[in-house]
Every structure is written in structure tokens, then in C-alpha cells.
């Protein structure tokens, strides 16, 4: 049995004390794996991601990340613990008043204060080159570069602190097929570039999820309906999974 990076045990979450968005969810994400979380809209994928990131506290249940119980941490400890995470947001979430290079330097200036400015620029430039961004774009503002370049910058920023776990929140939603393929390849390359890094991707893109992920978790009604290697999803007898996969693959 491989080591577990993220452990969710009977996690429940309600916002209005009536309806449970997450309803007794159990999930173990192995260390070093690339795991995709898929499911219908409104099944709690993003809510689960926010729980793992410590942005939401569960109503009940246990969440362990890298062996640490998030429920036992206060807000300051959680803030500190998040240095272990890198996140690529759906809309990249770049700081629009900073240049591309400044965006990538920002996490370093916050957490690696022992570094000189030159060293920070060197690390940031290396991360940007790693994700395939040409140096001629480094001094541009996010509004002056394309959506694909913004994704690359967002990924470089997520990688800046060499995180233990990398999260991708709907990384290809709203992108054209070429850009989608570019982002998918970027995720795979990034995952294989650093040995031991755990990657978690929340996605609507089933084709990409099954192609690049080591494990896939399908959520339904706030619970894990099926978890396993991609091939398990094509062999299952579960009618709901079969329908979802068939429709999703047809669409993509």
C-alpha cells in the first residue's frame, strides 16, 4: 500500500444546516500520484478541494494532509501549512498589478525572505522557462498576455515554492481544444518533472482526466461514487458511472 498524501474520512459539510453539499465522503489520495476528481456539476468537487486546502472547515469528519490533521490547526497554523501547496486556478488568478515575473516572485518574497532579489528573479525565471514561457513576456502584465500564457504563469507561480502537493482547479474549463491539450501536457510534464509531487486535478474534462491521471475519483451527491485507476471506469457495472463516462467522452 503506497503512502497517503490526502486522507478524507466521513467528511460532511453543510452551509445552511439543511442540505449537505458533502455527505460522508471518504477518499485516500496516494502520495506521488496524479489524481483527477470528476463528477456532475454541483456534486461538491470544488468544495472538497477547498476543504483540502483548508479554506473551508468540515461540519464533521477528518481531513489529513501530509499526515497533519487540518481540523486541529488554527487559522494561523493553516496559513503556514499552505506553503506546502501550489494551486493553479481556473482563471489563473494572477495579480493584475504585477508583471509576469513579479507574480512568480511573489510567493518567494513572502516565504523565502533569506533569498536576495537576484536569487528570487533567477528562481522565478527558471520556473517560467520550465513551463515554457519565453523571457520576452516576463515584464508584461497579465492583461497583456494570452490565456495560455496566463495558465503557464499561474503554474509557474504555483511551482515557485516547490510544493508537496499541486492542485489544479478546473484547469481547462473554457479553453479551446489546442489550449486544453497544451495545459494537459503541461500538467503531465510538471508532474513527471518533480518526483514525489502529488497532483490533484478537479476537472470536467473526462478525456483528459482518463488520459493523464493515475487515479480518478468520481463524486456524486457529496460522496465518492467510484475511485480507482482510469480503466476501472470503463469496466464498472455502475449505471450512473457508465452513463457519465459515455456522455463525457462523447462530448470531448
Amino acid at each position: 500500500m503506497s503512502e497517503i498524501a490526502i486522507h478524507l474520512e466521513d467528511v460532511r459539510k453543510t452551509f445552511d444546516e439543511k442540505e449537505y453539499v458533502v455527505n460522508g465522503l471518504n477518499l485516500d489520495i496516494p502520495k506521488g500520484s496524479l489524481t483527477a476528481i470528476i463528477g456532475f456539476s454541483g456534486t461538491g468537487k470544488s468544495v472538497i478541494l477547498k476543504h483540502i486546502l483548508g479554506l473551508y472547515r468540515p461540519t464533521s469528519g477528518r481531513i489529513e494532509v501530509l499526515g497533519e490533521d487540518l481540523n486541529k490547526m488554527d487559522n494561523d497554523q493553516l496559513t503556514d501549512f499552505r506553503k506546502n501547496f501550489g494551486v493553479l486556478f481556473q482563471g489563473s488568478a494572477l495579480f493584475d498589478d504585477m508583471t509576469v515575473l513579479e507574480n512568480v516572485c511573489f510567493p518567494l518574497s513572502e516565504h523565502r525572505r533569506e533569498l536576495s532579489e537576484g536569487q528570487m528573479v533567477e528562481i522565478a525565471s527558471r520556473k517560467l522557462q520550465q513551463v515554457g514561457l519565453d523571457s520576452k513576456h516576463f515584464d508584461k502584465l497579465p492583461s497583456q498576455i494570452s490565456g495560455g500564457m496566463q495558465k503557464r504563469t499561474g503554474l509557474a507561480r504555483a511551482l515557485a515554492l516547490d510544493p508537496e502537493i499541486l492542485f489544479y482547479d478546473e484547469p481547462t474549463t473554457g479553453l479551446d481544444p489546442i489550449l486544453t491539450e497544451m495545459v494537459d501536457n503541461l500538467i503531465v510534464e510538471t508532474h513527471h518533472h518533480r518526483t514525489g509531487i502529488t497532483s490533484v486535478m478537479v476537472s470536467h474534462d473526462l478525456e483528459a482526466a482518463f488520459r493523464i491521471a493515475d487515479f480518478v475519483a468520481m463524486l456524486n451527491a457529496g460522496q465518492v461514487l467510484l475511485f480507482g485507476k482510469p480503466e476501472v471506469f470503463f469496466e464498472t457495472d455502475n449505471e450512473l458511472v457508465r452513463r457519465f463516462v459515455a456522455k463525457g467522452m462523447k462530448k470531448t
Partner: protein
Amino acid sequence: MSDRRVSWIDRINGLIELFENTMTGFVSEVGSMVVFATDALRLSFKPPLRYLEVIKHFEFVGNGSVMIICLTGAFTGLAVSYQIYLGFKMVNAVNLVGPTVALGITRELGPVLTGLIVAARAGGAMAARLGTMRVNEQIDALDVMGVNTKQYLIAPRIYAAVAAMPLLTAIFDAMAMLGAWFLCVKLVELDPAVFWDKVQNTLKVRHLFEGFFKSTVFGAFFAAICTYRGFHTSGGAKGVGEATNRGVVQSMVMIIVLDYFLTNMIRIFYLAIGATP
């Protein structure tokens, strides 16, 4: 008859319930704002100290507001002194226009109008900026980067507003007095020596500080309200608009309501130390 009575009782109950819900909502919201602002200020003492952020926001709130404050100050002085001149002329007391304007401007109009103008300009911008950062997930990005967002985004804005407000009020006061001087001396031809002499004899340093104290409190309140609204924005562009609108309106109302209570507080303080309010 019985049905009608029941219906009236229901209506009264409904009104009581509405009042109760409104009051509960109001108290809970004010409580959340206080906790939000005090939390941000508490965190501001933890390293890393964000003094560069404070300077950056001070530049925006302070320097960025100087021109508009000069303009509104000068015209307020002109308009107020003219109205007072017209009133005092009827009782042959035009020599008192200068000191009356000076007291009114430094103690009331200066801090209140500066507060309203800066709340609309800088407070609105704070709410809109933070709201946009929230809906674009930039605040979430800061959170997951391990940056304390209240310490980084909120506290520097509150400090900047608190520091900039008394300085802007001083500028407003000076420009308003220049406006009053221009009207009284150049337009209605009062004696300039009498004008300044009366102002100097009446206006005390403590009157100026009353205004500065009020404006400092206004700065803290509008910054706390607007940052709270912006920080808790939801619902895309519409949400940003609503947050900005609510932030500015609530700040303005708060400034006017607070002004009354602060004036009374200062009056009680003067009476307690045996001074004339």
C-alpha cells in the same frame, strides 16, 4: 370580528419579527465588521510587517485625494462664508463671519466633508479592488500561498486611511479658510486685518485637533466598512458593484451618524475638564 383581530395580531407579530430580524442582522453585521477589522489590526503586528503596503495605500488615499480636497475645500469655504455673511449682515455682525466659518469648518464641515469625499473616492476604490480580487480568485490565491490576507490586504488600508485623513482634513480646512478669506476680503470687501484678527482670537489649536480626531475615527470606520464589503464580495461583476455601493453608502451614513456622537463625546470631555465646549 375575531378573524379581524387575529389578522391585526398577525400583522403586528409580522412587524415585530421583521424589526427583530433587521436588528439581529444589523447587530451581527456590525459585530462581524468589528471582529474583521480588529483581527486585521491584531495580525498587522505579526511579522512580516507590511509598512511598504501602508505607504503604497497612503499614497493612494492621501496624495490621490489632495486635488479633490483642495477643490471642494475652497468652494465649501466660499459658499459657507457667503451664506453666513448674508445672515450676519442682517444683524450687523459681518466681522464675525471669519471666526464662525473657521469654527464650523475645523470642527464639523472639514472632517465630515473630507470623510465623505475620501470614503467615496478611496473607500469605493478599496471595496471595488478587493471585490474584484475576490471574484477573480486572487484572494483565494493569496490564501493558498500561505499569505495572511487580512494582514496583507486589510490592515495596510486601514492604517493608510487613519494616517491620511487628518492630513487631508488639515488641507481641507486651509483651503476652506482661503475660500472664505477670498469671499470676505476680495468679493464683499471686509477688512482683511479684522478678518484674520477675529479668526486668530477665536480659533484655538484644540478646535483643529477636534476635527483631526474626528477625521481619524472616520478614516478607520470607512476603511473597515469598505474593506469588509470588498473582502466578502460574491457573485461576479454584479457582486462587486453591490459591494462597492454598500460600502460607500454605509460609510457615508456612518460618518454622519458618528459625527453627532463624537461631537457630544467631545462636549462631555470639555465639560469634564472644566473647559468651554
